[in-house]
């Protein structure tokens, strides 16, 4: 039975594809059938993936990997297939469950949209691509699905194509992601180049053989640790992919703009699953990073910088979805930082907990936006607690979870990351702790501005329909409790790290409430807690009690405020470089090359030569038609004569 469940796990990915194709080709006219197909296929996927998780958890030695040849040319072969191991099983459950809740939510959220069926088709297509990425057995297959999730994201951001902002955002998202993909491609090329002798009779670039391959290349002196083509450069080029996909500084610019898409998309793709794919890929390529300490610390610092950098921007945004988007960047920064610090389990643990509570927060924001009749500016909200109790309650749970309220899911995962930062890298611990403070501040700012005080808008807010609130309630449950599996409170201690780990696992034998208290009552346990309290208190002071710190900052620290409000002018810098440097330089050089060199020298020059010759020949030849013939045969004759004299 268990073997069958694992063997047929590809059905989890296949069914959404089938439903997407059915909707596109046959059922696009019917809203009900489209929704049923799409939700049904992912519901099946959720049940099946829970079984898979259970089966793998029961016997974690049980991996399954099957590969099929995709194309070959000489010795070069590429494969696609599917791999089920603990990491994959965990991701399957996360993707399927978030996708399931989001699709149920969509049923109510998009009900007035004329392209309802198309939306479900795209959602199913995305679910398929994301699951394909999770199932990938090798880096090459990952690259395939990596691009496919990117294109689904493109289609969905541009879903409301008639809005110029959405049209800009989808192009920008794809192009920025392509920058990362180009880096990833270069990384793969270098990796394949340096280890090509290793793959002769194996699955090319497979994750399970990555470690022996690198050891082989390093030991046979093909691949140095540091150098032009080295483990470090490969790891850094590969890192560009995750940097783009997981919106890490400086390739984060597309994610906030991507909020122009419908809110369910923001929850599914741009909060829970696709943006986490970068973290997932780093985890899969961990053997590369482990041997290259420089690459590891680059990963850690990029994560840390992103965490604090995006948190500072989130402080001053008024658009509810953009605030959440910057918060997503910041939390992804935590995950990347954790992986860079060597805290493999902690990073993936945060990925899982974050997927649930951030998806829920986005869905809450969608509920609020619907209730306020498509108003996204928090200055025109407020006091919504009265009108929409369920949304405000679930939102509060999400806010508490993300800011690290004790015993909620975000608390455990963030503490795990900060504890390992304390152990390995003190400056990054400071960065993480400050970001935690900022996180608590801006999340409570969001909550207070939206739900407390008096309503400042002009419409009539109301609680949304059950198809919207039920997913919120159901997502609130994992947002509170899922963190416990990584805590010392349950029997046997930290189950998550015992299940998903890299290399050798150090078992946490100790467990119980005392262990938890003992861990909390250390410096690295108390500082995050203090950060949470201070951040929350400040937000309460400013946005509930009306203590005018924000006014003070806006008036007296204008430059700092502007930096935060204008997102550190990163977009402006990029567009300036593009418009003022790249295009003009290109225009000048291309005009020169095309007009002067090619058309001028080659074409007109040859015409000039011909006319010169023709001018000379005109004395002996009169017709223009013969001119060509003469030139051709003359030159051929000349070549022949030359040849004949040489041969003799």
């Amino acid at each position: 039975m268990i073997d069958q469940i694992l063997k047929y796990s590809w059905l989890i990915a296949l069914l959404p594809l089938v439903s997407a194709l059915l909707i596109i080709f046959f059922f696009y006219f019917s809203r009900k059938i489209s929704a049923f197909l799409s939700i049904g296929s992912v519901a099946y996927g959720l049940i099946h993936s829970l079984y898979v998780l259970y089966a793998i958890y029961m016997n974690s030695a049980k991996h399954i990997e099957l590969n099929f040849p995709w194309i070959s040319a000489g010795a070069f072969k590429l494969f696609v297939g599917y791999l089920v191991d603990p990491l994959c099983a965990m991701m399957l459950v996360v993707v399927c469950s978030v996708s399931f809740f989001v699709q149920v939510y969509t049923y109510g959220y998009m009900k007035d949209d004329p392209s309802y069926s198309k939306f479900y088709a795209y959602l199913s297509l995305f679910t398929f691509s994301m699951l394909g990425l999770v199932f990938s057995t090798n880096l090459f297959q990952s690259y395939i699905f990596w691009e496919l999730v990117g294109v689904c994201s493109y289609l969905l951001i541009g879903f409301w194509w008639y809005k110029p902002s959405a049209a800009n955002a989808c192009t920008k998202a794809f192009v920025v992601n392509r920058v990362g993909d180009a880096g990833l491609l270069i990384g793969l090329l270098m990796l394949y180049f340096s280890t090509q002798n290793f793959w002769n009779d194996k699955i090319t670039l497979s994750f399970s053989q990555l470690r022996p391959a690198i050891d082989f290349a390093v030991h046979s002196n093909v691949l140095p640790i540091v150098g032009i083509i080295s483990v470090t450069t490969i790891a850094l080029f590969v890192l560009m992919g995750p940097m783009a996909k997981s919106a890490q500084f400086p390739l984060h610019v597309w994610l906030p703009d991507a909020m122009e898409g419908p809110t369910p998309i923001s929850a599914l793709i741009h909060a829970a699953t696709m943006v986490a794919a970068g973290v997932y890929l780093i985890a899969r390529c961990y053997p590369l990073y482990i041997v290259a300490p420089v690459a590891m610390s680059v990963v850690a610092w990029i994560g840390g910088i992103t965490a604090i950098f995006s948190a500072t921007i989130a402080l001053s945004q008024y658009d509810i979805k953009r605030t959440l988007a910057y918060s997503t960047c910041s939390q992804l920064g935590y995950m990347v930082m954790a992986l860079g610090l060597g805290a493999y389990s902690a990073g993936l643990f945060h990925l899982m907990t974050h997927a649930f509570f951030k998806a829920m927060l986005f869905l809450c924001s969608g509920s609020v936006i619907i209730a306020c009749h498509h108003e996204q500016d928090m200055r025109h909200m407020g006091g919504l607690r009265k009108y929409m109790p369920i949304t405000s309650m679930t939102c509060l749970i999400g806010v508490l979870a993300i800011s690290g309220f004790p015993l909620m899911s975000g608390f455990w995962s963030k503490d795990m990351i900060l504890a390992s930062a304390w152990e390995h890298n003190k400056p990054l611990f400071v960065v993480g702790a400050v970001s935690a403070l900022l996180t608590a501040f801006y999340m409570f700012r969001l909550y207070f501005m939206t739900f407390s005080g008096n309503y400042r808008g002009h419409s009539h807010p109301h609680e949304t329909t059950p198809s919207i609130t039920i997913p919120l309630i159901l997502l609130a449950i994992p947002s509170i409790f899922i963190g416990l599996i990584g805590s010392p409170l349950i029997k046997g201690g930290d189950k998550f790290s015992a299940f998903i780990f890299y290399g050798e696992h150090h078992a946490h034998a100790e467990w119980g409430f005392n262990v938890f208290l003992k861990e909390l009552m250390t410096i690295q346990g108390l500082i995050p807690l203090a950060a949470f309290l201070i951040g929350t208190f400040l937000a309460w002071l400013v946005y509930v009690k009306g203590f005018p710190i924000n006014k003070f900052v806006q008036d007296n620290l204008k430059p700092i405020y502007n930096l935060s409000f204008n997102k550190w002018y990163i977009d402006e810098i990029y567009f300036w470089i593009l418009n003022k440097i790249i295009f003009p330089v290109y225009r000048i050089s291309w005009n020169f090359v095309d007009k002067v060199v090619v058309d001028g020298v080659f074409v007109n020059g040859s015409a000039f030569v011909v006319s010169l010759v023709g001018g000379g020949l005109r004395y002996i030849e009169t017709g223009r038609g013969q001119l060509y013939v003469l030139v051709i045969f003359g030159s051929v004759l000349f070549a022949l004569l030359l040849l004949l004299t040489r041969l003799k």
Partner: protein
Amino acid sequence: MDKLTEFFLQHALSTILLVPIIAAVIIAFLPNREPLCRILSLIFSLDILLNVLVVIFSKFDPNLTALQYVENYQWFGDTIRFKLATDGLSISMVLLMAILLPVVIIASEPIAKEKPKLYYSMLMMVTTSVLGVFLAQDLFLFFLFWELELIPMYFLIAIWGGANRNYAAMKFLIYTFVAGVCMFAAVLLLYFSSGANTFDMEVLSRYAGSIPHNFQLACFLLFFICFIIKLPSFPFHTWLPDAHVEAPTPVSMLLAGILLKMGGYGIYRICAGFFPNILAELGLWIVILAAVNIVGAAIACLVQDDMKRIIAYSSVSHMGFVLLGVASLTSAGFSGGIFQMFSHGLISAALFMLVGTLYERTHTRQISDYGGMTKYMPKCFYFFTLACMANLALPVLSGFVGESLIFYGAFTSKFFTTFPTTIHFNFGQICVLFSAISVVLTAGYMLWLIQRVFMGPENTKWSKLTDLRTSEIVVLALLLALVVIWGIYPVSLSNLYEPSSTALVSYVSKVVGGL
């Protein structure tokens, strides 16, 4: 019946060449009505497709790397023979032509209203000559077919083209004529210097290695210039944007779909097959040329305002990958180059078709005249998006297969080390990495094109436009279905040519290794 089949199989290739000639003659005697001519030529084109499929599925063995279906007739004495034969490399190009021809004929409906008889006859003439180029195994015959293609193509542009058609047609003529001259000189040079006393390509390819090095180099360069004019490649590419802009839609489809591949095919067949030593020596320079093409043309696309020009420059960029693949002299690179030619044939045909449908309705190709077209032409938008995604090498669409094979092949090539740098890797690899910039640029210009044409606020000027007609949907669906199928399951295509291309690579490596 058996005898008839046997007879057909023995003369299959000449039949394939003869059918379009017969069609051209018959059409010339028809009444001058468009539907009649179109349907007749469609029937003939389907017959060609059927013949090609029969050839592939009956006796053709892709694993046999030798020439198959050989037909060898005496022509001008013993020297110049009428020799036709095929192998995996040429049959895949013939297949591409056979697939594109019916599609092009269906797409010709609005164009050929004027002088339909002449139009379809010309189309059939082009077919004969292109198929002849791919099937000829005698160098002189090859040259004749190569030149024959010029005449109908000139008229197709000059009669049915746009406003500036005479200039474009003349430019096309002059460029291609120069190419022909180069080839003619090279053919004669090769013939006389080898002393083989035959134009048989199989024999000549064996002799070519033994002629003096200077002559080899001269022959190679002449052939190479001829082929890169056709491909086209920097610095001989400027005829292509002009020709495309002025040519009518179906002719553009044909031009980008198959005529450019004659250049690529020539490089495989003659530059690599005859002069492997020279190819290995000059490999690095060709890689630099390829990188300039790939990246330069991609940037050129960013600054165009004419949709057809964008796609024309994107053709230059994509055909640069073929150069990169050939110059790598690895089996992945060779195989990828052929796949790239095939998939680019389908994708660019689809893109030109889409631009043609827009142009037919709006009579403008300037991007700035468009905006928000999705509202009026949603089907066109979906097809356009799919074709653009294929063009920017999205995985599971066929463009990706060729490009990734070429990248892997070129990066792992041993032959770029003739210009070693002091750092750990060689200059060829730097060029390959430089070409990887095109991954970003291609996405940039294709998506920007979609954004400016189909997204944003709609231009109410076009509110009376109708969406795609059934015939247009059929054309696009056929092309893009093949793009999807060969993108998901590339082995079904690569099996056809893979043994031949690997054999070519191993022959090249053997010759170069024995240097």
